[in-house]
């Protein structure tokens, strides 16, 4: 465990915890981007440069903006502020805490501690491209199809159908 990892871990956890705990939905999304950027930095620290940059591009650049747009478009100016947490928040937190306890117990008691850090893998973007185009070409094509379907589907679902009737 290095100092860099501790700092990044603290930033990530603080960002995500704030994202899930704050009252204002926009603040939540802004805190969330800190968390996403922290995860991206951890990827970079683990020598997964391509994944880290993709993470920043997709999550900070696209998903956060989408979420912010959705919050803006669904914002209803009501005089009474609705409560932040749902009626069964206690149950939910207990379940989440239990899940964390089980996962942490599994991690700590597992035999993973026998492995030490292997030497730095030299993974260039070219290798990733080669792998995508040869070994993983079928998943890549399916991914393209899925993204196209999601694009069209999102547009169709979000379209205002009343406008056509007018």
């Amino acid at each position, binding site marked *: *465990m290095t100092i860099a*990892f501790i700092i990044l*871990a603290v930033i*990530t*956890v603080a960002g*995500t915890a704030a994202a*899930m705990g704050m009252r204002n*939905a926009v603040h*939540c*999304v802004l805190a969330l981007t800190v968390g*996403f950027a922290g*995860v991206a930095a*951890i*990827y970079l620290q*683990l020598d997964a440069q*391509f*994944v880290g940059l*993709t993470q920043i591009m*997709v*999550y900070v650049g*696209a*998903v956060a903006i*989408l*979420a912010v*747009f959705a919050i803006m*478009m*669904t914002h*209803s100016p009501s005089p009474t502020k*609705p*409560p*932040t*947490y*749902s009626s*069964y*928040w206690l149950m*939910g937190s207990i*379940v*989440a*805490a239990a*899940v964390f306890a089980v*996962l*942490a117990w599994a*991690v700590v008691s*597992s035999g*993973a*501690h026998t*492995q030490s*850090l*292997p030497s730095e*893998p030299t*993974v260039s973007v070219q290798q*990733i491209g080669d*792998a*995508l185009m040869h070994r*993983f070409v079928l998943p890549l094509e399916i*991914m393209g199809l*899925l993204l196209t379907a*999601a694009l069209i*589907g*999102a547009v169709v679902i979000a379209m205002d159908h009343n406008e056509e009737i007018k």
Partner: protein
Amino acid sequence: MNSLQSYLLLSSLLFSIGLAGALTRRNAILVLIGIELMLNAANLNFIAFWRFGPAPAALTGVMFAIFSISVAAAEAAVGLAIILAAYRHSKTTDLDQMNSLKG
């Protein structure tokens, strides 16, 4: 405590935070974001196991993370579109109030 375990612990903490958010928040958008966080935690696991695993040259973990990020992007787009459609219908994103199957 060594490196791999600390990464795994961090990822399980992220997963639990996402789960807590998805289970306790009222706003549908934030619930969706909680699910995204859980996906992120899984990705972190893939990258950690790839880095500490026996064959990093095979790139399997990296590939899985890349595909998982793409699927998450598609999921976020469709999910937010559904929330928008639901909002247009019921004028709320409060999940406690969206409790009827009939429009």
